[in-house]
């Protein structure tokens, strides 16, 4: 024992009268006396094991899961083999979800900013204080701007999102913006312009599948990714066109490294062959479609030889693929996929795909593309008040709004001949468009937006052109973020409200449409940790505080307020969420019990649904009520009614590469890279660079390079490969985090938001993430 220790021991024994006499009152105790029988000793050390059915929330698919809980702790997540949508699959992310509730980084209690924005100074507050604070800020914003739409609400899809909309509608803003325009809005718009809806593909029964730019082996979609793996070896023929040799390409019968943004040319040439050789489904076309003659006329010029020059695929191969596609029809699929935030004019690309499916009759039958069926749930008859002080969406009619976010190379030849040039022609009222919304906020045109709510979305990382997003946040008087983690966006908030994880909460029932329609809900797999709440509880808490502030209700009729209190607050928010769920399921006796037991519910034993629209006289959601090969509404709007070929953007300077972004199977966009299990799989991203180009640039595999666009610059490792065309470079998203605190991925690899230009598709408002050109140099 050394002297120092000896001296300390003396300290304990001899010189501590004051310390010995210190009395701490019981009010300071974190611990209390445990009553008899507090703990069930019998469960240890052997352990009490329970299996609880729920659904994954690590990405959009919501696969069925069975939580294996030992002594109250989630020990493991197992796949649910009975779930008809996920077909027993649980991917790496789904497995890694087991770490989510136990992440020490998770938000634990409401935090109020005390320093400057982004400085990282916070204080803890109680939920009561948080609700009061939010309600007061809403009242102040309403008072100051006399326009409820001066507060904007961003969110991403999820089971609790409907309760976020309770808050939105209780305040009365029309400015909502969702993730759709960052993902699949062009796809929805393009397919809907033909069929009136966005379909699924029956990969379980298709005989011939063409995938253009979809990487189903990596970007997982259920049941497609499972069916693609399962049925491809059973004789299904797969043609993949992608500038990269992807995992999906590796499984294909034929892979073509198509020149980016010429997919439309390829499909137009297929249409040319199919129509000129009379290979189309004449009966289907005559019975169900509108505008065939115009289409026939338009595709005359798009010969395979013409297409070969555009997309660099031999004309003979295009002919052969077209004939094979028609030959296997209706069990042929031109695959819709999901994310389509690729190129300007993307809506026309997707419209072309849909037209190919239509003329071959590959619609709403086994092995084709099929409209989504759904199991309708009972909705609550809610009337939110009609507020006097609510102006229309900020991006609704803002003239010249898109001028600055559509490249001039796209604008000039197109203006007046196919693309709108002032606002988005078919902007979804609820989804909005991130790019136009942000542009309008930055310009204060037509009015200022000064309040911003964000529910489980991270626009700082997810929306292209991060500098503009930061400027938008700077303009706000008030920012409230509801999140599970201290995201880059939460870091700039005034108040951060911690949301419970999907494994700890009750989530309402959702009807997931598809060929195999299904209802899912969530029940807590484990007891919640820390002081978190669900959006159901958060909306209820804020709305109760709002009701205490009379100025928040002075622009509605008193009777409307009374109805609102009764119908929304008392009947729904003040009751247990289980009552809400039971009401949703009231049409289906036993459904609630089955959901508790199995985590999903189906009617007819989960059989696929085909043929609901293949009935003479069926009215499609289009102007003519038919499948529109020639879109009448587009014509009215001055857009191309038929998908005329649009030339791709070209690099401005030699030495520039087109930047492509994508994802892998073990991460969801920007949200999972810091997960300890997933980080083990991939610790940083690297940029794919064609071998020949790398040689020219003197760059070796594994060497660090600088990738630079007009927006910004990133440092990243090179992956030198033959698997990408020489004119493109590619990396997966979610790395190179801005936040120094994203311990595992901070400065590991590169972020895409830092370099992608905010180019816009002016029909749907979707972003175009593959319209950025970059240079590459040694770092």
């Amino acid at each position, binding site marked *: 024992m050394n002297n120092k220790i000896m001296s300390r021991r003396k300290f304990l024994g001899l010189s501590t009268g004051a310390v010995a006499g210190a009395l701490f009152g019981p009010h300071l105790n974190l*611990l209390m*006396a445990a009553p008899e029988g507090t703990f069930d000793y019998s469960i240890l050390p052997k352990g009490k094991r329970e299996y609880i059915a729920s659904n994954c929330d690590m990405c959009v698919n919501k696969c069925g899961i069975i939580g294996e809980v030992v002594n109250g702790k989630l020990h493991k997540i197992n796949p649910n083999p009975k779930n008809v949508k996920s077909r027993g699959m649980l991917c790496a992310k789904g497995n890694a979800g087991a770490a989510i509730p136990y992440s020490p980084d998770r938000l634990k209690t409401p935090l109020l900013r005390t320093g400057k924005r982004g400085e990282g100074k916070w204080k803890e507050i109680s939920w009561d204080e948080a609700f009061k604070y939010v309600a007061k800020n809403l009242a102040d914003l309403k008072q100051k701007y006399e326009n409820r739409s001066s507060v904007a609400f961003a969110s991403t899809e999820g089971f609790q999102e409907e309760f976020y909309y309770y808050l939105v509608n209780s305040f009365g803003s029309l400015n909502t913006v969702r993730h759709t325009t960052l993902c699949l809005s062009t796809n929805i718009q393009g397919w809907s312009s033909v069929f009136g809806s966005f379909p699924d593909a029956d990969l379980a029964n298709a005989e011939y599948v063409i995938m253009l730019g979809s990487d189903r082996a990596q970007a997982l979609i259920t049941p497609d990714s499972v069916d693609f793996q399962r049925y491809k070896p059973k004789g299904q023929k797969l043609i993949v066109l992608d500038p990269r040799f992807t995992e999906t390409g590796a499984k294909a019968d034929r892979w073509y490294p198509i020149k980016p943004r010429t997919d439309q040319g390829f499909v137009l040439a297929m249409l040319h062959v199919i129509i000129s050789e009379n290979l189309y489904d004449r009966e289907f076309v005559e019975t169900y479609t509108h505008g065939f003659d115009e289409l026939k006329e338009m595709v005359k010029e798009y010969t395979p030889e013409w297409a070969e020059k555009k997309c660099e695929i031999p004309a003979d191969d295009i002919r052969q693929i077209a004939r094979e596609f028609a030959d296997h029809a209706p069990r042929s699929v031109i695959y819709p996929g999901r994310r389509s935030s690729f190129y300007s004019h993307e809506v026309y690309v997707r419209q072309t795909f849909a037209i190919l499916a239509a003329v071959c009759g590959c619609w709403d039958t086994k092995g084709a593309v099929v409209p989504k069926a759904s199991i309708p749930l009972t909705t609550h008859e809610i009337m939110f008040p009609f507020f006097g002080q609510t102006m229309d969406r900020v991006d609704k009619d803002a003239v010249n709004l898109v001028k600055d976010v559509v490249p001039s190379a796209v604008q000039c030849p197109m203006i007046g001949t196919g693309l709108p040039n002032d606002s988005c022609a078919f902007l979804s009222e609820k989804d909005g468009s991130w790019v136009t919304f942000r542009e309008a906020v930055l310009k204060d045109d037509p009015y200022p937006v000064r309040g911003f709510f964000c529910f489980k979305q991270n626009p700082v990382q997810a929306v292209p052109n991060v500098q503009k997003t930061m400027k938008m946040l700077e303009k706000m008087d008030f920012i409230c973020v509801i999140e599970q983690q201290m995201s880059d966006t939460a870091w700039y908030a005034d108040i951060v409200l911690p949301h419970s994880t999907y494994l700890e909460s009750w989530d309402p029932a959702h009807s997931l449409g598809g060929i195999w329609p299904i209802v899912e809900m969530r029940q807590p797999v484990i007891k919640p940790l820390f002081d978190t709440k669900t959006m159901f509880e958060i909306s209820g808490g804020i709305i109760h505080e709002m009701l205490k502030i009379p100025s928040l209700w002075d622009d509605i009729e008193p009777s409307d307020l009374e109805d609102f209190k009764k119908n929304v607050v008392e009947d729904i928010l003040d009751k247990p969420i289980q009552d809400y769920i039971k009401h949703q399921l009231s049409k289906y006796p036993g459904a609630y019990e089955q959901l508790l037991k199995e985590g999903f519910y189906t009617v007819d034993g989960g059989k696929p649904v085909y043929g609901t629209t293949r009935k003479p006289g069926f009215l499609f959601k289009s102007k003519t009520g038919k499948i529109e090969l020639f879109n009448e509404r587009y014509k009215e709007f001055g857009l191309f009614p038929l998908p005329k070929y649009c030339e791709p953007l070209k690099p401005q300077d030699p030495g520039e590469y087109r930047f492509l972004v994508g994802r892998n199977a073990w991460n969801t966009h920007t949200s999972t890279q810091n997960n300890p299990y997933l980080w083990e799989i991939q610790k940083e991203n690297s940029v794919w660079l064609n071998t020949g180009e790398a040689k020219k640039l003197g760059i070796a595999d594994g060497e660090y390079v600088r990738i630079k666009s007009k927006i910004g610059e990133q440092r990243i490792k090179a992956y030198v490969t033959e698997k990408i065309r020489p004119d493109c470079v590619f990396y997966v998203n979610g790395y190179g985090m801005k936040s120094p605190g994203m311990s595992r991925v901070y400065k590991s690899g590169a972020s895409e938001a830092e370099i992608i230009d905010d180019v816009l598709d002016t029909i749907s408002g979707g972003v175009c993430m593959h319209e950025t050109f970059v240079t590459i140099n040694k770092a």
Partner: protein
Amino acid sequence: MEMNFESLKKEILSQLPIKNTDSSIPGFYAMDDATALGKNRVDAASALVFKNILFYLGLIFRYPTEQIYSEIETRLDTFTDFFVDYGGAAPQLPPIEELQSEYIRLFVNNQGFVPAMPYASCYQSEGLLMSDQFYRLRQIMVKSGFMVNETVKELEDHIAILLEFCAGLLNQLASGQASSGKSSGACVAALMEVSYLYIEPMMDAFCDRIHAYAYDDFYKIAGKTLKSLMQDADTIYDQLLGFRIHSINELQG
């Protein structure tokens, strides 16, 4: 050699008047020979001092609400010599807003990750909350007559709770609440387990991270003090309870 339940148990058993090496016995708190652990004389005066020190340190590692801040402030003078002795300096208490934001940044939520995670589980196996050992801790606590107050939404292995738990056990020993041989022995066993299997293993990383990431000296000194104190735990327990456990370093050496 790593300090785990088995090695700790072996170490204690080697110093007991009766020998019991039955490895199937799940924990000291349940051992018949816990009685033996309680037979040693407890230095009640020193135990009370140590109890107060641990309780005060527990307060320091709690979120500084106005009440906690004021308690820390009021008592700081009383513990100044202790901090100087163990932490090398007397901590200066910054204004409450500063302390609150520093606390949150270090221990609760930062941009993306928490620099000094205050939970013992985070320093075991996978680095996540509620490790397998966590449930054992909960069981020891309840068996010792404690549980986390129902209004407190914190995990049992938060450093502030661990310190308060040790303080509570010392109080039982010093005040004679655990006077019967067996309960006194169980109390000692619980103290040993919590000190050596939960607190000590997190000390290096936890306190070093505080030192690396803290902006203000207050938590740096508090962290250094806590670490030195736990390094000294062996000799302190020797004085208080009449037997000593080799420190991890010694065991590893």
